C-alpha cells in the first residue's frame, strides 16, 4: 500500500494542522504516506462554476500526479466526491490513471480500508457532528435523513471510538451549513443565514465543538462564530482522531504556562 495524501488547497494554505492531523492518524495506523508536492487542486471550484476547460485541466493534472500511488486519501468529502463522481466528465476513462477507483475520503479509508477499531485518543467534550453534504449525499458516508436506505454512519462510528467524546443530538441531523463553494460569496446573504441556523442548532443541543469531515464547511461556520464572538469551536474530524485538544484548552494551557513563567498563581 502506497498512500498519496491529497490535501485540498485551502487546507494546505489556511488549515495546515488538518493535514498534519491526517498524516499523523494515517502514520499511527502504520501507513506509509507520501505528499506529492506538485499537487494543487482537484478542479472543483471551476467545475461547480461551469468552467469545463479549466476543471478538465486541473482534474487531468491531479490524475497524473497521483498515478504512482495505490491509494489516495483526502481529508475532504467534497474534493473526494469531485474526483470520484465528476471527474469522468472531464477526461477519457483511459487517462484518469485509475484515480476514481483509488481515491478515499479519510473517514471512509479509516473505516472501510484500514478498519481502525481504536485511535487511543480521548476528547472529553460534547461534540455536534456536522454532516458535510458531499460526504453524506455524494459519497454516502452516512444515512441521509431523506432516504430510507440504511447505511452505516462512518464518521459517527469513528468518533464513537474516541474516549470521552459525547455526541449531541441535533434538531436537523444533516442540513447544509450554507458554504457551497462559490455559493458562499455568490449568495452571501442566504449562505450566512443558513450558517447561523446551523450554529444555533449545535448551540441549543449543548455542543462545545462542531466536528465535520470537511474543513470548508467549518471555515464558513468558524467565520460566523468568530464574527459573532461565540464560544463554540470547530474542529476537523482528523484533528479529533489525532488527539488534538480543543483550541480554548490550548489557549488556557498557554495562559497557565505564561502565568507560571511569571511566577504568579
Amino acid at each position: 500500500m502506497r498512500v498519496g495524501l491529497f490535501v485540498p488547497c485551502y487546507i494546505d494554505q489556511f488549515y495546515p494542522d488538518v493535514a498534519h492531523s491526517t498524516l499523523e492518524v494515517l502514520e499511527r495506523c502504520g501507513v506509509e504516506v507520501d505528499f506529492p508536492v506538485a499537487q494543487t487542486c482537484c478542479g472543483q471550484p471551476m467545475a461547480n462554476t461551469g468552467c469545463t476547460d479549466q476543471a478538465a485541466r486541473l482534474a487531468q493534472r491531479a490524475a497524473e500526479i497521483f498515478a504512482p500511488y495505490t491509494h489516495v486519501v483526502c481529508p475532504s468529502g467534497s474534493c473526494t466526491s469531485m474526483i470520484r463522481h465528476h471527474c469522468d466528465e472531464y477526461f477519457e476513462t483511459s487517462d484518469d490513471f485509475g484515480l476514481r477507483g483509488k481515491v478515499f475520503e479519510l473517514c471512509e479509508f479509516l473505516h472501510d480500508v484500514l478498519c481502525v477499531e481504536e485511535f487511543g485518543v480521548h476528547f472529553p467534550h460534547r461534540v455536534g457532528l456536522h454532516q458535510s453534504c458531499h460526504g453524506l449525499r455524494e459519497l454516502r458516508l452516512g444515512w441521509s435523513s431523506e432516504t430510507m436506505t440504511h447505511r452505516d454512519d462512518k464518521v459517527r462510528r469513528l468518533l464513537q471510538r474516541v474516549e470521552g467524546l459525547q455526541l449531541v443530538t441535533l434538531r436537523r441531523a444533516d442540513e447544509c451549513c450554507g458554504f457551497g463553494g462559490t455559493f458562499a460569496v455568490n449568495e452571501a446573504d442566504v449562505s450566512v443565514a443558513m450558517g447561523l441556523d446551523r450554529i444555533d442548532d449545535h448551540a441549543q443541543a449543548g455542543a462545545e465543538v462542531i466536528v465535520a469531515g470537511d474543513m470548508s464547511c467549518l471555515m464558513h461556520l468558524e467565520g460566523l462564530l468568530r464574527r459573532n464572538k461565540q464560544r463554540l469551536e470547530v474542529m476537523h474530524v482528523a484533528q479529533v482522531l489525532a488527539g488534538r485538544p480543543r483550541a480554548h484548552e490550548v489557549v488556557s494551557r498557554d495562559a497557565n504556562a505564561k502565568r507560571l513563567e511569571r511566577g504568579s498563581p
Partner: protein
Amino acid sequence: MSALPIIEHPRAAAEFVANRERTRWHDKALWFVREKRDRMVRTIPEWEWLREMASQIKTHTIANLAEYLEQFERSATAAGAHVHWARDAEEHNTIVLRILRENRAQRIVKSKSMLTEECHLNPFLERHGIEVIDSDLGERIVQLREETPSHIVLPAIHIKKEEVGDTFHQHLGTAAGASDPKYLTEAARDHLRDKFLRADAGLTGVNFAIAETGGIVICTNEGNADLGASLPPVHIASMGIEKLIPRAIDLAVFTRLLARSATGQPITTYTSHFHGPRRDLSGQQTGQLHLILVDNGRAQIRDSPEFREALHCIRCGACMNTCPVYRRSGGHSYGAVVPGPIGSVLSPTIDAKRHKSLPHACSLCGSCTDVCPVRIPLHHQLLAWRKELAARRLLPWSKRLAMKGVTFVFQHPALMNWMGKMSRMALRWTPRPLIYHRWNDWGKGRELPIPPQQSFREWWVKNRGAGSAEVQSAHETDRHRRPKEE
C-alpha cells in the same frame, strides 16, 4: 421572452433574508412539512423501491411519449372527451378562450394548475372580459392580493395568517383584525361556494393522465377541483404532455408517493378520476370535458439527454420544502412560475438568459435529489446547467476571468505557494478596513480564516522533502503507537 428583465436571485433573496424573523418563520413552516413527510415515509418500508419504480415508469413513458399520447387521445376520445393539442402557452390560452366563447361562458372557477400559471392564463382571460376565480384557498388568497404563488403546493406559504385576515377583511368583509384560520377558511368557503354555483365553466389541472383508459386523475385536499368539474356544465382540464402514465395500475405507485412527499399525508383528501364527460344515471351525457395537452417547451426538454429526467416531475413540491436556500429566500426570489430546485432546472430551459442566476442559487447539498419521489438528480442537473450557462457565455466575465486566473495559478505549484504565502501575510498585516469592505462578500457576515505561519506544503518540503534529514527519522522513530498493520 428575453425582453423580460434578468432575474437576480441573490438580490431578491437578500431582501427576503434581511427580515431575519420572517425568514426563520418561513424556514420553520416548510421544515415542518418536510418532517411530516419524513415521518410518513418511514412508515413505508418499500419507499426506495417505489421511488425507483416511479422513475422507471416515467423513463419508459417519456421514451415512448408519442405512442402513449396517441393512445391517450384515442381512449379519451372514445370515452367522450374532446382532446386539444397546444404547441405553446399562446395556443393553450386561445383554445381555452375558444371553448369558453363557444359555450358563452363569462365566469369560470379554476382549481390549482401550475400549467395555467406557466401559460399566464388568468391575465389573458381577464383581458378578454372573463372572470377567473382561483378556487384553491391558497391560490385565492394570492389572487386577492394580486401576487403569484410562491410554492407549487402551498401557494400562500409566504403569507402569515394575520395578513390573510387583512386581505379577507378588505375583500370578503371579514371582521377587522380576525386571524383565526377556521373563521377565515369559513369565510373563504362561503365566498367560493357562491362563485362555484354561478360559474359557467370549471378549469382544472391534471395530476396524472392514463394512456390506457383515457382517464385523468386530479388530487386535491379541498375538493375544489371536484366542485369546479361537477357544478358547471363545461370542464376544461389542462395538462402538460409529461403527465402521462401508461396504465391504470401504474397510478398506485404515484399516488402513494405524491401526497406523502407533498404534505406528509398518506393520500390526498380527494383523488378524483374523470373518464369522459359527466353523465346522468341513464348514461346520458350532461356536460363537456375538454382536455388540452400542452407542450410549451417539454418536447425540447425531452430531446436533451442532460435534462430529460426533469420531465419525471410530479409537482409534489418536496424539493422546495427540503431546499435550505428556498426555505430562506422565499419562492418569489426565484422570479419564476416554478420556484425551488425543480424550477431552477426548468426555468432556464424556457429562457436561459433571464433565469441564469437560478442554477447558482444552490449550495449543491443534494437534499432535493434524495427527497425527490421520482428520483430526478436535481442537484446534478443544476450543476449541468452551470456548465451549459458557461458554454453559452452566460456566466459573468468577472467570474470567467477569475476562474481562468485561479486555474493558471493551480497549474503552477510554486506560484500557488508564493501567492498563498503573500495572501497569508497580507491577511495578517493589512488594516482591517482594507480587508472587510463592501466588495468582500465573504466578509459581510463572516471572518476570514486566521492565516497560519506555514502552509502544510512548506512544512513538508522542509521536513519530509527529498534530502530532508527527517524523512528517514520520521519513519524510524515511532512517535506514536501503531494500533495494527493492515
